[in-house]
């Protein structure tokens, strides 16, 4: 294929030729091309199909506002749907596919929708897919889903990395056109820390797209020279390929840098994109302006484009959509395109100007006061029909039509903090209002000053004012000479006779749809938008919103500013989810905390599970064990028979010190702590202020003014936060200090009848572990293994004679190995979370399943623990009537009547003989397991008045899983209810 529409000149590098493929066809292009410009050079105008009617479409623009030419870029795992061909930078080997068509772009079966368009008017879905309700899920939704959508996902993991970064500056300049460059020069030379971002890979904005001279040289050359000067300044960071996507609170801007999108594969170690959070003292928005179309009959054929895009393709990319081009304009800028095309040797067949007083030309034909009546060409424009000012139709052959309806300042970022743009009648455009994001000012075409001279001037002056505000002295920039053409425009929005005139080309919204919405009383702009979907496509209405508003104003008989404007929200352009995620996906969404015995446990072949941020051993399979239950049952039995070891480091540990430490704990636990003797541990129940249980744990008193508090693994962070709240906000005068020591101590539970004997082998001489010297709930600081400081607590979660021993974390690995070695003669087993869970259920100890954010001390059978003799967090509100009903839920044990039956956690409890309906609900199962000691499944649960219903046979139902059988209500303490083993 030859590049038959390639022109001379331009800013492409002809020394580098790239081969690329679009659908099944191979083409050639050059470095500096976009996918769209390269396809146009090869004579390809048809690049996509519209969303609803599958109309054939080509590029309408040469930039990021593109509604039509959106493609699937790249293939395989790197496939990216809905990518604008107008911004996709060409590289050698690029692969792109058209989307939303079947079987091919030229013949799309779904274009039948277009013939049925009378049925698919605005609100079609709302009106049609209403009833019967049963049809929604089975019939309507699959139909809509199959027909809708644009590109498809690869459904595979993205192999590339995305990063996040933080930048700080005095001045962020958004946009590198004439205003942005003049501002950057001024601020850069003044010594301010400047960041200049531009979404394009070639900085210069319209200077690269126009033929204007700046300072006696070509505009593009001036831009290149200026960028080189800026890049040489150490205080200026120039960021091409970087789109500022949002203006956030306090001068923070989000920006996406496309580091590798212009490469087939990112360079080694480089991410595909980076999401920058830029904290700026001030920002200057120099985002330029976007040309808007005029709406007329069949204005969507491939080849019908913004006039400014046609000349951008000619001037920068040395290509034209066709050799014969017509122009349709309501302002002088359209004529600019005509003269630029002529200079490039493209035939300008006619300039149709809606204004009766249109400028005349000796170089090209001008129809003053004419409008486009109709266009022809199914897959690409072939002919236009012009309604002449004095009546009659003139047919003109052409392959492209440049349309200029005036320019809209790109005000989007000015609206991200709630500002609304204001209407400027002279420019016939919305310009930024006085309500800007704090710290932002606007310069250049984004404010509605459109000439090159005024853009340079407003950029330079804007920067100077900002620097003065920051106390930095900047000298005035010697402005290079540039054109200063005034704007001459007569508002003209749409050709009224049109039947199918497209306003929003990506979402296929016509002028008729807007009129219909008005007829149906959708008078607010926001309602219009949602009813017709105007402006709701991936281009967010950059080329369509204003025309839509103008048509709505017309049918409502109002002025445009009376109709209002829709809000602009971040992101400015479509942004990949991947860059928001950054490196945070899979296991990297959060930190992974490893217990001190992790390496050792891996060596034992442990299976791990996530517990909060922690990885904890779940069970330790032995050779021959094929099911987790085999390992778990063995660990439970051996621990209860002899001794087992479990890493409990992940439980939260908080060191609390100070003369008021005891008073402080008395405040945060509902039970008393003031009188706990030194050398003793006490179980503590912590309530939220609303009387619901927050957490439980133990507090060990190591000295008069020194406690070690433990929390559950899951709540360690919240409990610490809460304790700091109580300390700083509620008890600011107490002498109490604390710090989290969870990571500082490795802690192991040693449980089972032989636990004392095992421990005696590792403690140093003189440490007396006898029941008399170190009874149940004792604690103390000891030494082990020949002088290593350790903390010993005689506490038990399993219900056995048990200890927890803590050593500085760095000794944790050595300690578990030593303990295992010392325990060999007792056939010690390591046990994991599953066995720990079974043993605590057998013992009736509550954990997160029971402390589930809805339960009180009363529910847990610990109502009497809430001391009324003192003030503690939550004690007052636990007295609320609703929490103290006579039939309140109580913790019970449950045993299936048939020992073969399982008990599903989450099953509900029903009184025998009652109907299974919510009002008869008597409670629910919180924890269930198979008990190898009892030889059947057992469970814990909450049952209304459960403490008085021991012995009752109750119905256990789980309609979701089809379970419905009988269980006996028993004490939650299945094993050793009197606690003799603990005290042995």
């Amino acid at each position, binding site marked *: 294929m030859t590049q038959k529409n390639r022109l001379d000149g331009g800013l492409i590098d002809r020394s580098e030729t790239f081969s690329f493929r679009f659908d099944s066809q191979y083409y050639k292009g050059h470095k500096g091309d976009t996918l769209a410009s390269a396809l146009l050079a090869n004579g390809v105008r048809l690049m996509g199909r519209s969303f609803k009617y599958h109309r054939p479409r080509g590029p309408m623009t040469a930039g990021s506002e593109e509604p039509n030419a959106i493609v699937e870029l790249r293939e395989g795992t790197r496939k990216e749907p809905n990518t604008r061909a107008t911004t996709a930078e060409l590289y050698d080997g690029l692969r792109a596919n058209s989307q939303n068509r079947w079987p091919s772009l030229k013949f799309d079966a779904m274009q039948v929708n277009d013939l049925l368009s009378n049925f698919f008017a605005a609100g079609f879905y709302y009106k049609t897919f209403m009833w019967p309700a049963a049809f929604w899920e089975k019939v309507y939704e699959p139909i809509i889903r199959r027909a809708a959508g644009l590109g498809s996902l690869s459904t595979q993991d993205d192999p590339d990395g995305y990063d996040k970064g933080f930048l700080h500056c005095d001045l962020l300049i958004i946009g590198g056109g004439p205003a942005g460059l003049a501002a950057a020069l001024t601020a850069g030379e003044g010594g301010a820390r400047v960041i200049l971002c531009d979404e394009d890979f070639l900085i210069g904005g319209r200077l690269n797209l126009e033929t204007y001279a700046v300072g006696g040289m070509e505009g593009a050359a001036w831009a290149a020279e200026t960028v080189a000067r800026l890049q040489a300044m150490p205080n200026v960071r120039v960021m091409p390929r970087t789109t500022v996507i949002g203006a*956030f*609170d*306090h*001068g*923070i801007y989000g920006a996406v840098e496309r580091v590798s999108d212009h490469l087939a594969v990112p360079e080694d170690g480089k991410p595909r994109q980076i999401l920058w959070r830029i*904290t700026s003292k001030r920002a200057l928005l120099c985002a330029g302006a976007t040309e808007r179309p005029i709406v007329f009959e069949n204005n969507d054929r491939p080849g019908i484009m913004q006039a400014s895009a046609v000349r951008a393709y000619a001037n920068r990319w040395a290509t034209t959509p066709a050799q014969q081009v017509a122009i349709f304009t309501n302002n002088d800028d359209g004529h600019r395109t005509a003269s630029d095309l002529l200079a490039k040797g493209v035939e300008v067949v006619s300039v149709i100007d809606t204004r009766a007083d249109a400028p005349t030309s000796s170089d090209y034909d001008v129809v003053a006061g004419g409008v486009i009546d109709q266009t022809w060409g199914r897959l690409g424009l072939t002919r236009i029909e012009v309604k002449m000012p004095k009546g009659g139709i003139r047919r003109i052959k052409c392959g492209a039509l440049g349309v200029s309806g005036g320019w809209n300042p790109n005000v989007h970022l000015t609206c991200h*903090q*709630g500002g609304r743009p204001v209407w400027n009648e002279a420019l016939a455009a919305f310009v930024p209002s006085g309500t800007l994001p*704090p710290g932002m000012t606007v310069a250049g075409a984004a404010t509605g000053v459109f000439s090159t001279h005024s853009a340079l001037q407003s950029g330079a002056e804007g920067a100077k004012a900002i620097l003065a505000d920051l106390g930095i002295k900047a000298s005035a920039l010697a402005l290079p000479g540039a054109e200063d053409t005034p704007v001459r425009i007569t508002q003209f929005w749409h050709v009224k006779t049109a039947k199918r005139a497209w306003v929003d080309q990506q979402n296929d919204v016509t002028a008729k749809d807007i009129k219909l919405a008005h007829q149906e009383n959708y008078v607010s702009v926001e309602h219009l938008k949602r009813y017709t979907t105007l402006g709701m496509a991936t281009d967010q209405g950059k080329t369509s919103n204003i025309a839509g508003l103008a048509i709505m104003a017309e049918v409502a008989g109002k002025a445009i500013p009376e109709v209002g404007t829709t809000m602009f929200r971040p992101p400015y352009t479509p942004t990949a989810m991947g860059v928001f995620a950054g490196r945070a996906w899979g296991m990297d969404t959060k930190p992974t905390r490893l217990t001190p015995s992790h390496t050792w446990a891996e060596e034992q072949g442990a299976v791990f599970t996530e517990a909060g941020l922690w990885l904890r051993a779940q069970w330790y399979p032995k050779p021959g064990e094929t099911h987790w239950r085999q390992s778990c049952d063995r660990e439970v039995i051996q621990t209860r028979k002899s001794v087992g070891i479990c890493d409990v480091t992940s439980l939260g540990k908080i060191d609390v010190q100070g003369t008021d430490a005891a008073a402080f704990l008395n*405040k945060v636990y509902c039970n008393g702590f003031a009188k706990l003797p030194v050398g003793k541990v006490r179980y503590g129940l912590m309530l939220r*202020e*609303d009387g619901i249980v927050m957490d439980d744990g133990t507090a060990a008193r190591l000295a008069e003014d020194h406690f070690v508090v433990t929390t559950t693994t899951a709540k360690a*962070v919240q409990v610490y*936060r809460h304790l*700091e*709240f109580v300390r*700083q*906000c*509620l*008890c*600011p*005068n*107490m002498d109490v200090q604390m710090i989290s020591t969870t990571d500082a101590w490795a802690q192991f539970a040693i449980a089972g009848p032989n636990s004392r004997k095992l421990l005696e082998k590792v403690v140093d001489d003189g440490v007396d572990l006898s029941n008399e010297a170190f009874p149940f709930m004792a604690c103390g600081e000891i030494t082990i293994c020949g002088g290593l400081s350790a903390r010993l607590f005689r506490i038990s979660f399993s219900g056995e004679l048990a200890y927890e021993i803590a050593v500085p974390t760095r000794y944790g690995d050595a300690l578990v190995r030593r303990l295992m070695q010392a325990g060999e003669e007792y056939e010690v087993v390591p046990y994991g979370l599953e066995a720990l869970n079974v043993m605590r259920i057998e013992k009736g100890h509550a954990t997160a399943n029971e402390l589930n954010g809805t339960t009180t001390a009363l529910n847990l059978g610990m109502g009497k623990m809430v001391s009324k003799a003192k*003030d503690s967090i939550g*004690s*007052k*509100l636990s*007295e*609320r009537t609703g929490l103290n009903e006579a039939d309140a839920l109580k913790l019970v044990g449950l045993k299936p009547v048939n020992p073969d039956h399982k008990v599903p956690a989450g099953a509900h409890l029903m009184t025998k003989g009652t109907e299974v309906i919510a009002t008869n609900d008597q409670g629910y199962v919180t924890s269930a397991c198979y008990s190898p000691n009892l030889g059947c499944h057992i469970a814990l649960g909450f049952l209304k008045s459960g403490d008085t219903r021991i012995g009752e046979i109750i119905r256990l139902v789980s309609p979701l899983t089809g379970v419905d059988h009988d269980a006996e209500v028993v004490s939650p303490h299945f094993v050793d209810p009197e606690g003799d083993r603990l005290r042995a």
Partner: protein
Amino acid sequence: MIINHPLLGPRDSSEFVYLGDASLLNRPDWQADDALEQFIDYGHTRDNPAGLHRELWYHEQGDRSWLVVTRNTVTHEITSVELARDVARTEGRFE
């Protein structure tokens, strides 16, 4: 958002955890005759102003200070940042 920490200077809001209305500093006296009513009000009743709002933020990824931040809920402008402990002391917490 940027919170100007009274001890550490300007810090990104992502370092903080938000709790809510600073009226939580005014915990009632548990021995008052109408203590239960007061606690219900303390626990559940909040103003929801469009404008200045005093609220509690916790510098969890920092020095673990609780702060009272005065923020305009409409504009997110922050006009004052104080250590909650200082506020609690000035407002007469006796404990």
